[in-house]
């Protein structure tokens, strides 16, 4: 493996961030070594669009819109690949690339990560599922949401310090949690018959949507954004590639993160692949491997779950607008499963939903904090001795926890919170889909540039997000934010 040369690359814009040296692209290993690079992205994707928003839409309008969900995740596949293209060739995150085009883009991406994700849609959905498990009143949701967020904040902050211990006692933790779940079910559900609660399905919420137009433009856009990962989440794929040592990412020095105790790629600038026949050959192999990995781990699994969960909810409940605009459909789905399969199966369905939302929310808190820490550490806080990466990370974690815990007491409902997060994420995608086209057209060596049939596809995708964003902003200005609910 050749050492990086001392000559500085002219391809990458260096007006706002320092130029980088040339370095040959490493030789890729086999696909199986990299399978799983997208698994975190996929795991974080499941809890919002797949589990909540799309099944919700299906209960309102049927399965007629499934193709839109598949279109949504397909668009994300192409976006992810452009994010990967930049990172494979340079070893830099796409956000660092945006900062090279114009320094404030990094800050805008940070705001675009934080602002949509302070809305506790996942936490309140999980809290609502918790009330289903134990047949608690809906009024408990704010308190449980707060506890839920607090638990995530504490776990993310404290677990690194006791990481080694946690690893040793993980078996014990599983047992303790199981004991809690079993004991709580026995205690809390005493005397309440699950099947009989079917009659309590909220009835007669008048004037509910039965068509796309009535589901609401924001909800539909949000659902398309959250079909897959969505928002700034896709950008963190750059960090996962670097951690995994894919492409030029392997040349990024790993540090033992003080946050996690794990080896991760340090926030740093990258390299530029010089145009040589050998690099071009390696690039072709990297590109093929990265595409296959994304197709299998992200697109296929994501699309399968999107479709399956919608089919499940419709075959259980049919198109049923009397379920309300909230998570009533999940409640009804669990009761249907309990009736058809066995009472424990309904509870297991809620528990699974709760766990998926918990892992999604941890993933969200993690990626937002990591993107922020990484981006600020290579730009505005590069030379700050006080603001280390871990300090920024922890600060953002608690900002999300505290803001989310405050917002939930205002009484905004889970689905509305998710729609807010998703539309905010959609605005961010509108911005970075354009930036990706500019960056990958401008800053890369000719053989790796965005061109050919992917270019018109990326332009159409960017147009889609931009048009939807402009439309929603226009609606908000002319008819007020409430018009989107």
């Amino acid at each position, binding site marked *: 493996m050749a050492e990086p040369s001392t000559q500085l690359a002219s391809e990458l814009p260096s007006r706002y961030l320092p130029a980088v040296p040339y370095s040959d692209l490493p030789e890729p290993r086999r696909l199986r070594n990299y399978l799983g690079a997208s698994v975190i992205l996929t795991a974080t994707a499941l809890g919002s669009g797949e589990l909540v928003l799309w099944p919700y839409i299906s209960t309102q309008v049927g399965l007629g819109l499934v193709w839109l969900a598949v279109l949504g995740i397909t668009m994300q596949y192409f976006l992810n690949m452009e994010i990967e293209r930049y990172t494979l060739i340079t070893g830099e995150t796409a956000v660092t690339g945006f900062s090279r085009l114009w320094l404030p883009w990094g800050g805008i991406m940070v705001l675009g990560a934080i602002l949509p994700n302070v809305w506790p849609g996942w936490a309140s959905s999980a809290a609502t599922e918790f009330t289903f498990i134990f047949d608690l009143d809906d009024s408990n949701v704010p308190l449980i949401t707060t506890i839920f967020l607090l638990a995530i904040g504490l776990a993310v902050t404290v677990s690194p310090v006791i990481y080694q211990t946690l690893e040793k006692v993980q078996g014990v933790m599983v047992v303790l949690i199981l004991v809690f779940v079993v004991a709580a079910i026995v205690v809390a559900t005493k005397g309440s018959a699950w099947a009989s609660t079917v009659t309590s399905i909220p009835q007669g919420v008048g004037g509910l949507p039965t068509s796309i137009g009535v589901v609401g433009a924001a909800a539909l856009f949000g659902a398309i954004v959250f079909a897959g990962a969505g928002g700034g989440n896709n950008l963190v794929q750059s960090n996962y590639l670097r951690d995994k040592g894919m492409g030029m990412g392997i040349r990024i020095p790993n540090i033992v993160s003080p946050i*996690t105790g794990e*080896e991760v790629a340090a926030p740093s600038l990258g390299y530029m692949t010089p145009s040589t026949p050998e690099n071009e050959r390696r690039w072709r192999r990297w590109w093929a491997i990265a595409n296959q990995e994304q197709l299998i781990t992200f697109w296929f699994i994501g699309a399968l779950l999107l479709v399956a969960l919608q089919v499940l909810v419709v075959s259980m409940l049919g198109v049923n607008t009397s379920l309300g605009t909230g998570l009533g459909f999940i409640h009804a789905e669990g009761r249907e499963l309990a009736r058809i399969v066995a009472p424990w199966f309904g509870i297991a369905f809620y528990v699974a939903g709760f766990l998926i939302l*918990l892992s999604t929310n941890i993933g969200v808190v993690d990626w937002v904090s990591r993107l922020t820490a990484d981006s600020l550490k290579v730009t505005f806080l590069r030379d700050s001795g006080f603001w280390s990466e871990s300090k920024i990370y922890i600060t953002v974690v608690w900002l999300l926890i505290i803001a989310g815990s405050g917002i939930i007491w205002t009484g905004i409902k889970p689905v509305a919170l998710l729609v807010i997060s998703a539309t905010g994420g959609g605005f961010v995608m509108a911005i970075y889909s354009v930036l990706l086209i500019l960056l990958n057209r401008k800053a890369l060596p000719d053989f790796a540039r965005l061109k050919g049939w992917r270019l018109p596809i990326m332009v159409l995708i960017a147009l889609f997000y931009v048009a939807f964003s402009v439309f929603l902003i226009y609606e908000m200005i002319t008819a007020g934010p409430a018009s989107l609910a």
Partner: protein
Amino acid sequence: MGTVRRLWLTLLFAMLIFSVLTSVAWALGLLT
């Protein structure tokens, strides 16, 4: 698979903290 293992452990730990805090809230009669 460092990140996956880390998130898994964090998930378990968060579950544990959530269980303890919810039990306390329940014991205090805050959950109805």
